[in-house]
């Protein structure tokens, strides 16, 4: 379960060093990009957590520590904006829902969690795979119906759908630490 358990002491020490030498640099670098001190602090923290989690699998690159940290922080920043734009789009659409049908706050949180999981995968897909996936999974179209609507062969539709499942399997097997 603990994905950090197999980090060897040597790597742990290397991460400690990175943290003490570069944490405040990373935080101010992020603040300039994000324009918010609180978001920058969160993302800087996430960057080091990510480092700890991935350290078990891949060797640390310590020859260019700031470039290395910036690469991870960049990925997290893109993810951060993706999640924020997702939340805003969801809440905006929710605002259009009649009150009687609006889900409870608790339910909204659950939906957002599931949305985020699906959205992370969709973000990795070309537009047509994304569209085929949404038609199949959210709207319940059969593969044949999708093929005729998108003017593709069934085999191509299957390839698009398989692409989505391939990405979800790889992604999910990488982040098993949260259950």
């Amino acid at each position, binding site marked *: *379960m603990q*994905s950090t358990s197999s980090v060897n002491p040597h790597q742990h020490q290397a991460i400690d060093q990175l943290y003490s030498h570069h944490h405040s640099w990373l935080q101010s670098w992020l603040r300039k*990009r994000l324009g918010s001190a609180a978001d920058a602090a969160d993302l800087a923290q996430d960057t080091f957590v990510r480092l700890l989690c991935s350290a078990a*699998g891949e060797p640390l690159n310590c020859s260019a520590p700031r470039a290395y940290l910036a690469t991870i922080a960049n990925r997290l*920043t*893109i993810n*951060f*904006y*993706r999640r*924020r*734009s*997702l*939340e*805003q*789009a*969801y809440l*905006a*659409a*929710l605002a*259009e*829902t*009649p009150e009687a*049908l609006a*889900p*409870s706050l608790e*339910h909204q949180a*659950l*939906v957002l969690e*599931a*949305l985020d*999981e*699906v*959205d992370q*995968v*969709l*973000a990795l897909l070309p537009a047509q795979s994304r569209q085929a*996936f*949404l038609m*199949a*999974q*959210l*709207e*319940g179209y*059969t*593969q044949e119906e999708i093929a005729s609507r998108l003017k593709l062969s*069934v085999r191509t539709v*299957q390839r698009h*759908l*398989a*692409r*989505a*499942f*391939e990405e*979800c*399997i*790889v992604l*999910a*097997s*990488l982040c*098993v630490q949260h259950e």
Partner: protein
Amino acid sequence: MSNTPIDRRIAREAASWFVRLQNSSAGAAEHAAGAEWRARHTDHERAWQLAVRFSSRAQQLTGEPARAALERPRSQERRNALKTLALLIAAAPLGLAAYRGLPWREWRADARTAVGELRTVHLPDGGQIRLNTGSAVDIAYDDSARRVHLITGEMLVEVLSEPARRPFIVDTAEAQITTLGSRLLVRHYPGSTFLAALEGAVEVRPRLSPGDDGLVRLAAGQQTHVSIQAAQPPMPLAQHHLDWLSHVLRVEKTRLDDFISELGRYRPGLLRCDPAVAGLLISGTFQLRDTDQILRALSQTLPVDVHYRTPYWVTLTARANA
């Protein structure tokens, strides 16, 4: 539990099987070949289960707001996250205009659970469905009725009574169940439906006798089995029906083959028992979260050997003489 990343090649194969077998034209031979592929290696089955899980996650997201969020424009996202945000905020009112005028009163959802999974589905009227392992439901609400089709598996439904008094209708292959407000347990067996009313009153009609002569009423604390022709008279509710909610399987003097078939619901892959040991009796309380542990316990308390051809292909046989 292995938590290692799954090889992309395996992920691709699993995805391809998963998509092909979802197509209704896939025949028995193809399904068998898919099952064989899954059983060949633990990572195959892991990859498959991740696809199942992702698919059911996505299928929960059927409301318009969720769909609108996933279909939001995102071409700018990678190029410049900051700019995209500004664009989206500006574009939101335009995009939303497209969703106006849709029939909001209709609400549809499909939900399913993977083997070993429990899930809670929240209903738009405030009620909820707890889905047991390997179950699937379609949910459709409209002005006149709240309908849930139990396609397979087992569910506990909390039906809230409404001021509008729309009936809550559960359809299974064998029966139609109607209530205005209750807590009911429905399980689909091959060829029959089991129904228990935990709170409130419930009416059930077999598919082939939909009129009043086929009707059976259950009061709170009663249960029945329904075939497609007839419902049995109500019986007092048996114990242990809700053990699965706490991931427990409790049996008393149960035949090993019955126990194994029940346990098999919670464990991916094939789980079988040799006819020679099928009649052994077993009692106990078992934690369903770890079915390997249960199998180990069986081999310690009964004269059986547990053979793992793969983790997803397990057979119980009479103990070889030591």
